[in-house]
């Protein structure tokens, strides 16, 4: 059966294969299952940990547990991207989320405030994640998080 692919789709697939290959050290077309989250997110998906867990159950290679095959991953990932599943919320929504924490409308959040919300609510950040986030988010002068600036940093396409 011949399946005609749009160039858009084949381009997508190349991107997926590229990202996958970075984690496939020896060219065996498999990667450690723990890397899948990074691969999917690096391809633009805004996944929750819960979403990820569901996907991993489906993807895990039955013959070698703990690993995922490119053959299984590629069609699933292509579909996600084509369907725009896990498409990130707009930067505006992201900004609103920060504003939600800033009840006093100060325009900034203190380190304690942000740490409190992100390590105790939702899919809590580990201490490492929190520290790493703060290391980039905190304005060195004020010691606070100017979240408006930080949002543009997070959503910027050119890291």
């Amino acid at each position, binding site marked *: 059966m011949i399946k005609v692919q749009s160039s858009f789709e084949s381009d997508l697939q*190349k991107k997926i294969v*590229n*990202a996958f*290959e*970075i*984690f496939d*050290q*020896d*060219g*065996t077309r*498999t990667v*450690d299952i723990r890397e899948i*989250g*990074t*691969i*999917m*997110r*690096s391809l*633009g*998906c*805004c*996944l*929750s940990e819960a979403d990820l867990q569901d996907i991993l159950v489906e993807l895990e290679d039955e013959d*070698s547990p*703990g*690993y995922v095959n490119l053959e299984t991953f590629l069609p699933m990932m292509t579909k996600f991207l084509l369907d725009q599943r896990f498409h*990130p*919320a707009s930067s505006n*929504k*992201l900004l*609103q*989320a*920060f504003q*939600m*924490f*800033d*009840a*006093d409308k100060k325009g900034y959040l*203190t380190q*304690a*405030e942000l740490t*409190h*919300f*992100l390590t*105790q*609510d*939702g*899919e*809590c*950040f580990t201490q490492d*994640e929190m520290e*790493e*986030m703060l*290391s*980039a988010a905190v304005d060195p002068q004020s010691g606070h998080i100017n979240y408006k600036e930080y949002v543009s940093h*997070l*959503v910027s396409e050119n*890291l």
Partner: protein
Amino acid sequence: MGCAGSAIRYPNSRAVQKFETMSAIERTIKAALLIQRWYRRYRARLEIRRRCYWTIFQSIEYAGEQDQIRLYSFFTDLMTHIACDKSSFSNSIANSLRGRPRILAEIEEEERELWKETNPNLIPIESTYQGPHIHLPLTADQVTLLINSFRKRKLLHAHYVLTLLHEARKILQSKPNINVASTTLSRHITICGDLHGKLDDLLTIFYKNSLPASDNPYIFNGDFVDRGVQSVEVFLLLIACLLVWPDRVFLNRGNHEDFSVNIRYGFIKEIMYKYTRHATRIIQVTEDVYSWLPLATIIDNKVFVVHGGVTDRTDLKKISRMDRHQLITILQPPMIDGKMTCDQEEWDQVVGILWSDPRPQPGCHTNSIRGGGSFFGPDVTEAFLQRYQLERIIRSHECKPDGFEFTHGDRVLTIFSASNYYAEGTNKAAYVKLVGTNLVTQIVMYVSSSHTSNAEIQQRQGYVEQSALRELKQLIYASHLLLIEKFHMEDTEQSGKICIGRWCDIMKEVVGLQLPWRLLCPKIAKLDPLSGNVYYESIFQEYTIQNKLAEQNEPSLLETLYRSKDTLETIFRFIDTDGSGLISMQEFTDACQLLSKHLKTSMHQEEIQDLAKSIDINKDGFIDFNEFLEAFRLVDNDSPSRRSGNHVCGLFCQDER
């Protein structure tokens, strides 16, 4: 802090809250989730970039090892076929591949010779010597003295170096092939991985974890030398520790405790530079010390500590019975007069444990990336541990971003103790402490330079990327002519552009590295914004081979030699047995001929001679090849002021003696 917080913070008081606050809780959680998802996406994008650059460093590293192994197997072929050729050149190759005699009388003779030629008393200590003085028996205080002197960049006198090395030989000779370490008295033991001449890292370990002592045993798991600029100091310090605490300091041999590897990766050059006319003696004894280093250590009959790993053939009985001293080099089986002098299988056993890497895939395969040793899967690990009733393997040999990594269901721990190994900011280092009767794993991570440790993750990343791209671009430049030829074949319309897919294929094929070329493309080449095609000439713009050489010589010959300059250097160092740095015109052309045979490319005799003449500046018929290699560098076209060569950062740039 904020007043909203108090209402939201305690979900257990939910029952009394009104609908509005309920939805506020939900809204907070939703907001948190949104930010967390976005952040994790952002983090993943950074991570993939980090991995991408990591691949560059790693690929270049392993390609180099593969090259060196290929060169040695070429030498072996050469020796088996032309064993009768007695030119000085083939002598030095034969010498590097030699094994030790097996007959007792000859062994004793060799011992006497070694002592006669390298007796420390041959080298008097000048009254002007400013470095540290040591005396036997060595004590802990003297180790501290050495540390303090090395910190101040003082050099230990060649007389003392030989003294330490000879003492170390005596102690190492009494050790079994597989060391046995026990924690019964000390209750813990510390294991350090590759140090690679990074004195700061060793000193950081000693600072954090104290010097070795009767209640503070250490295992140093090989690769003490090469790459770092203070390999001499690291090696001497470890030897000194061994002398003071012979039963509490265990040294395992690594794949870099091998002069055939040192010849390419810097230790030989460092010794020559630091000890000039005494270098040959020091090299001679060090080589002997290497071949007396034990090959592995077993802790409490539970943990197998070895530099590389295991294979499906690893047989501890065979390893513990063999004559490890036979193996001067491990790159090729030892030979005398074109014949192997040791059991091929014994050699294979040692290659297996010193060169192998664990892999997630089951089975045992040839290590195609390094060109030596095997890849071993979790099943191989499991079978090995079962066979010898051991619990885990601790190994080193591979640089890891955090300095350590668990694999094979935590049965294999990689530990790597050289921070910033590839470049500033690339990796943390770690050592591991096994504590208590159950040998509980405690990993300590560190970075010994403060330069980048506090930098924000993205800045650090930027720094690392610059170094990686610089290395990569130089490597690409080395294949300039070959690439251009391919590009032109592809670009039939001579538009100067080709599509990115073909560009990736050509890069992979010609440069010979498995890299995420598509992702790297925008970083190293200019793209046509409309079509997305690659302007292929743009990847060469930053560099050229030094003008002086380029003006007078055939470009394709220059490029071939430049591309193989590490191999060429290895060949040069063979010829230069007296360490003078001078080789004759004849030897130079011989070396190039040999290289062309190895590379299976033709080089014209005349062109080689022209090149030789163009670099023999004083016209005395000898070539200073250190100078030659120095001239053989790429020039950064962007910054003429840096032409003095500091951007390429030779081995000793940072070394202020």
